[in-house]
């Protein structure tokens, strides 16, 4: 029982990331009809927004502290972050400590801008081209984005810690009445899951309750008819692309304390997120979310020691295996709509 709860919890954070990326992929596919291979790169760029902001916050200048000396007896030179000068030492430290959550504010405009530039500058020229061309050009873009990040940030993972307040773990087991230390779960992962739920909820609410969202949903169902109504759907779709980029970016920002970001994390997640989208059903938003969590949790179960003893390596292949089985038995995925990508 404890083991099951633990694995479900463990699967949630990865599942959250899958769900958020797959949600954006589906939004883009559903609205624009474009298969975006660069979506993983957006997740990765989001993560590096967090890295960038924490670097900006720790930008320092050197001052000479006359009150202290180094081992040679000279006055000690200390690095002082600029935020200390601006906000004072204690507030400044809090700001640095909270770099990752603060990056959300930084990442939203950056990601939306990147998304809009991407759509207007590149993707829009590919609406009428074959899906293979869309895959190829976004694949090329993904390589370019990832290499740019690699050039500026290097190839090694960059540790980006969570705020001190969220370090450590929560003992779920004790809370549920099991023995202590059986089910422990890092606080940050709880935060990540909650954050993912909020974002997913916000996206669905936005699509459900705003006029904008209504038009987008109508456009997903039948683009031509909506255009006949005289609604400028292209501009809305551009914004939609920006939003999808922001969702992926935020997923990346918040993921940094879980796994130190590196330049190829986007591609690693993309391949799996595509599988998630296909399993959920191309063009189905609830399908994407459901499949994201489902596969995340399944992956986590497959990596249990007991399972691996029977079927070694199952954790490595479970997602692909499930995808293959689902595509063959339910060609439209779990919640796919008829007529989407069936040519």
């Amino acid at each position: 029982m404890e083991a099951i709860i633990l694995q479900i919890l463990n699967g949630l954070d990865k599942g959250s990331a899958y769900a958020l990326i797959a949600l954006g992929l589906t939004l883009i596919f559903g609205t624009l009809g474009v298969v975006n291979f660069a979506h993983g790169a957006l997740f990765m760029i989001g993560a590096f927004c967090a890295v960038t902001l924490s670097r900006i916050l720790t930008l320092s200048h050197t001052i000479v502290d006359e009150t202290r000396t180094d081992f040679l007896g000279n006055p000690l030179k200390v690095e002082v972050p600029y935020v200390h000068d601006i906000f004072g030492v204690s507030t400044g430290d809090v700001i640095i400590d909270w770099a990752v959550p603060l990056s959300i504010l930084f990442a939203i405009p950056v990601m939306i801008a990147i998304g809009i530039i991407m759509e207007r500058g590149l993707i829009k020229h590919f609406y009428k081209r074959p899906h293979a061309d869309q895959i190829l050009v976004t694949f090329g873009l993904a390589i370019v984005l990832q290499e740019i990040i690699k050039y500026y940030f290097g190839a090694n993972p960059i540790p980006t810690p969570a705020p001190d307040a969220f370090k450590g773990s929560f003992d779920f087991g004790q809370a549920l009445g099991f023995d202590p230390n059986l089910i422990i779960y890092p606080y940050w992962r709880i935060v990540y899951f909650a954050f993912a739920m909020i974002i997913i909820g916000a996206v669905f609410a936005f699509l459900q309750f705003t006029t904008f969202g209504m038009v987008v949903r109508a456009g997903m169902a039948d683009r031509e008819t909506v255009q006949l109504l005289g609604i400028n759907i292209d501009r809305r779709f551009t914004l939609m692309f920006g939003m999808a980029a922001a969702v992926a970016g935020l997923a990346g920002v918040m993921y940094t304390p879980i796994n130190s970001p590196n330049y190829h994390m986007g591609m690693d997640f993309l391949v799996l997120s595509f599988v998630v989208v296909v399993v959920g059903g191309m063009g189905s938003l609830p399908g994407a979310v459901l499949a994201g969590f489902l596969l995340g949790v399944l992956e986590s179960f497959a990596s249990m020691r007991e399972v691996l003893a029977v079927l070694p390596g199952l954790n490595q292949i479970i997602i692909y295996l499930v995808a293959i089985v689902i595509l063959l038995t339910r060609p439209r995925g779990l919640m796919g709509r008829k007529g989407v990508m069936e040519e």
Partner: protein
Amino acid sequence: MFGLEKKDWNLLLFVAALVALAPFILNPFPENSAMAQFNAGYPDLMQRFVIFGIFAIGFNILFGLTGYLSFGHAAFLGVGSYAAIWMMKLLTMNVIPAIILSVIVAGIFSVLVGYVTLRRSGIYFSILTLAFAQMSYSLAYSVLTPITGGETGLQPKVSDPRILDGAIADGTIPKANLFGLEMGASFDLSIAGWVFTFNAGYYIAAIVMLASFYLAIRIFRSPFGLMMRAVKSNQQRMNYTGLNTKPYTLAAFVISGMYAGLAGGLMVAMDTQAGPERMFWTASGEVVLMTILGGAGTLIGPVLGAGVIKYMENILSKINSDILHGWFAFMPDGMEDFTVAILYPFIGKGWHLTLGILFMLVVIFLPGGLVEGGQRIRALFGRGKAEDKPSTEPAE
């Protein structure tokens, strides 16, 4: 001749001349000159040119003819590699059985994968192939370690049984050979400042590549090739014309998988090692890049694309900032630094960036790849005929 039209025969001769003279063509600069770093005429790289040429030719039979974009073709190359290395461990270091088995095993594997993946088309097919390849990679990397050597991969060892070969003296490394002719055997020809290397392995791979190319031409021009182009053009019409598209696409998939297996087997014949990284999805992406860059659906395109990408990978990635500074030393200091700073991200370890940009530009502006570029240039100079009237054959 040999069942080819004049045009195709000329193309084959052209490619044959290119590979035969490659040691000269790829080494245009004297050994000790500053430009020698652009020489690509060393055995290792030349072997890779032709081997990836085979891989891309095969991929093009699937993607170029039927339009099915496989994102997992490296799996077949990897499977072929493992088959070949086991042949070398168990049977003999002679490359013939290794290569034959690699083709057979890759063929069987592609029947299985193709049977499943071809039940879907379009993006689903791409993702299914990707999923299969990643699964194969993960299996090779972890679970199947007894067969694949896991992360470290496999190499022939002195202690391997090798039942057809005699015992190897201790301390020597078993070398791949063709009836005694070692793949690594080379002959250097020095003329004035130039050094040209003629390598046995390269020429053997080149002959296999020419044979593969010849076979690809025959397939392109055959009724089967026509049917595959019809699959790409209009499956609905095919079905209502009494043709079952499934076996046609499966046959294309398997043929192209066998080409990949052949490439994998040859790779092992040259470097006698196999590892899971050959199956990673980036390796599958690379062959897609090669084919698109050269020109999908054309005969010569994949060969060109493989050459360009492998050349860039090896030559561009070797340039470092010192070399750049050397080139631009004639400029005033500030301008030199500026120019180097501009160019630096695109070379050395950053060559992937150049590749990505080049690839995007090709997909955006030249969907027909380098071949289309060549045709456009020819048309500019008034040599090409108006292109709105394609002949009965696909472009070469």
